């Protein structure tokens, strides 16, 4: 069983390669449709520039080369997993990305745990206690948190919990300039993580709650639940052993989508909470026309999407063994 799953994933990944390749090519040309180039941005930021200066920069960035030559050299590099050089930052694209990916992953992981956990719990509760005040409260809560703009939620949390109550810092990932190490440092990061993770969870939590509730209501009405009840199983067992496993599948699909969007990060949350993640890096590099960096982030995102999709498919079969991996692997 496990080896067939591994083979399935490998197979999916190999099929994903042409997709990634096509994405890279499309990105390369699409991104160049944006008017203005990096030299103009740099000169603009400088407030003044000489012709000589602009020429030097274009030459250095390779912007004076014909497009097809730029394209060929980019593809050559990408095949060797070399994402190129960000002239604006004077650094390798890969080092810029890997420096930031940790912060993004941490934030995403935390918000994923909160939103899936709370979302599934609230959704299931709302379904089990259908047509009670509790269920109505949960539904209303999920609609409100789904509809509230995240930046506003973030700022309100800052005003209440940072400024008025003083429980959490307003921004950043750790206390700047501190010399903390080990557990103390980890706690400091956790302390900074609370507000951004909670804010980011609001949106997905609402989504999971609604998905879970709908799917749970449907499942609870199915025949096998009636059978279970007829067998004399307790409500607790029916819900935990039978209904939950079936109802959670749509949530898994959605969680896969959430993971896929991870590298893009959340520009809004990172911006409001001064979180040094990839979302902001992508956002800034777009406005600076730092194309190599932007392409690098897109490239990694496309890989992540392909990999996550394959993994989610496999996770389905674990949660619900009736689902089979299609193709020749079905009986593996």
């Amino acid at each position: 069983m496990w080896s067939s799953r591994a083979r399935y994933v490998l197979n999916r990944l190999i099929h994903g390669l042409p997709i990634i390749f096509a994405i890279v090519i499309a990105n390369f040309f699409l991104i160049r449709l944006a008017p203005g180039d990096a030299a103009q941005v740099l000169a603009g930021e400088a407030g003044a520039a000489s012709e000589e200066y602009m020429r030097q920069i274009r030459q250095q960035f390779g912007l004076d080369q014909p497009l097809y030559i730029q394209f060929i050299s980019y593809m050559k590099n990408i095949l060797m997993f070399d994402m190129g050089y960000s002239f604006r930052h004077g650094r390798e694209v890969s080092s810029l990305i890997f420096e930031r990916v940790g912060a993004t992953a941490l934030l995403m992981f935390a918000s994923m745990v909160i939103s899936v956990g709370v979302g599934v719990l609230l959704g299931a509760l709302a379904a089990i206690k259908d047509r009670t005040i509790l269920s109505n409260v949960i539904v209303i809560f999920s609609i409100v948190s789904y509809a509230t703009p995240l930046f506003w939620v973030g700022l309100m949390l800052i005003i209440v919990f940072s400024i008025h109550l003083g429980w959490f810092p307003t921004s950043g990932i750790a206390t700047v300039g501190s010399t903390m190490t080990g557990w103390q440092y980890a706690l400091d990061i956790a302390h900074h993580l609370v507000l951004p993770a909670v804010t980011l969870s609001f949106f997905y939590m609402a989504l999971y709650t609604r998905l879970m509730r709908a799917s749970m209501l449907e499942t609870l009405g199915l025949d096998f639940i009636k059978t279970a009840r007829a067998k004399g199983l307790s409500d607790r067992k029916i819900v935990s052993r039978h209904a939950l496993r079936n109802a959670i599948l749509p949530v898994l699909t959605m969680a896969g989508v959430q993971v896929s969007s991870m590298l893009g990060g959340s520009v809004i949350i990172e911006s409001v909470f001064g979180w040094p993640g990839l979302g902001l890096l992508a956002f800034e590099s777009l406005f600076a026309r730092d194309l190599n960096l932007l392409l690098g982030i897109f490239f990694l995102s496309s890989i992540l999407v392909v990999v996550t999709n394959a993994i989610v498919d496999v996770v389905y079969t674990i949660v619900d063994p009736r689902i089979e991996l299609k193709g020749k692997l079905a009986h593996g």
Partner: protein
Amino acid sequence: MLLIKSWKNGVRALALASVVSVAAGAVMAAPQGGGTLVVTTTPEPAIITNALSSAPTTAELATKIFDGLLEYDFDLNPKPSLAESWEISPDGKTITFKLRQGVVWHDGKPFTSADVQFSLMKVVKEYHPRGKGNLGPVTSIDAPDAHTVVLNLAHPYAPLMKGLSSLETPIVPKHVYEGTDFRNNPAVNNPIGTGPFKFAKWEKGNFIELQRNEKYWREGKPYLDRLIFRFIADSSTRAAGVERGEIDVATFGTINPVEMRRLEELPNISIAKGGYEAIAPVMMLELNTKRAPFDDKRVRQAVAYALDRNFITKNIWYGFGKPAVGPISSFVKGSGAFTDQGILKFDVKDRLDIANRLLDEAGLKRGANGMRTKIVHDVAPFGEDWRRMGEYIKQALARVGIEVELRNRDYPTFVREVHNKYDFDMTSTWSIGMADPTLGVQRQTWSKNINPEVPFGNVSQYSNPEVDKLWETAQTEKDQAKRSQYFHKLQELLVADSPVIWLMEMDLVAVQNDKVQDLITSPLGVRGGLYDTWVKQ
């Protein structure tokens, strides 16, 4: 919420009482060493060596790490820095600097005349976007000994002595840069200077940390142990950080003017005025003089009359500035270059009548909808306040029958369309006038600066032989009194012609926590070395 509010007021009252008593006791307090100063600025710079870039935040960082040959007092007179003394020859064509002895670079190597020679000729003049303006006439530099440099000039150039601060002409180490590709030298983002602070750490997207230079040549300085620059993308969060005391200093542009006024009301926060005299920032509207309707001087003047500079200053920028007289701002009063005598004044009682009359004379009659003509205003992509100013301009010009369409675009698009293609009618911007009009103001209206290759030049494409001649004569004149006369004449001519509408002299104030002492001690303000700044523990 109500509870929180009243509880907070109580705390405020208490805090206020303690601040008052502390202030009373601390009038003569001597600077305390140690401590960390946390500054927030935006955007995060791309590099932190300002010899190669004049981006504002690059300069804010680099001026702590590098020294210049000179510094300036608030009247913009030169003071010693890396140069201890100087002498200008009677013909104005040779300047001799005696350099300070015993200065060492952050890596321990001695600082010598070779570094100055290299920095000025090979780095700043070639690579700094304003290098040609500051050092253009310098043809060669001699270094007769390790602590003397002699600058040889093609012609006398008075502005030179105003452009040698760490902001404009930082001195970089020859031994680190010589023979390398400067822009790709790793030292660009791991800089070695002679300045009060050493580079320690850069966490991209988060902060830059600088540490006290133990061997700084100004003995006992700097007072601070550490200087941290934090980068936070959202302006409301920056304001919250200042309010909560996580951030000690917020530079201009990091917090909206309206928020600055709110923070100022808090007991432990104040506005740090001053420290932009040497930068002389002016806000303006540039008009396309090569295109109807602004090819007609009367229409340009009508716009100048129609806009209420006092309203803009008070209501859009919350008083952080004062109405501008013309291109040459009152920041350079000390040198005599500024005047408001005999200059056309637009803020007169019957200004709307005059504007209407001028437009009638220009042949722009009101149509059926009451409008005479339609123009597009490209709003500078610098943020919310600029968009609000655009909205005001739209309303104000509608009153005299000019219909305005506002266009907001992202930065690269804006630069390309407006500054590189000159495809615009009217655009807003701000420009730094620098300590001498030749350095910063000339480029706006000098016809040789009409060059679509280079953004932020003479965008109005204004070309007037008389104006050109005045700029060029002022450039080479040695006698400051005569130069001032030329500048006064320029002020008069340019305001009357109005290729650009100069709106406001900007106050680039910073917001600071009251525990920060001596933040603004030079005309560069927070863009200075901050070696006199200390934090009350």
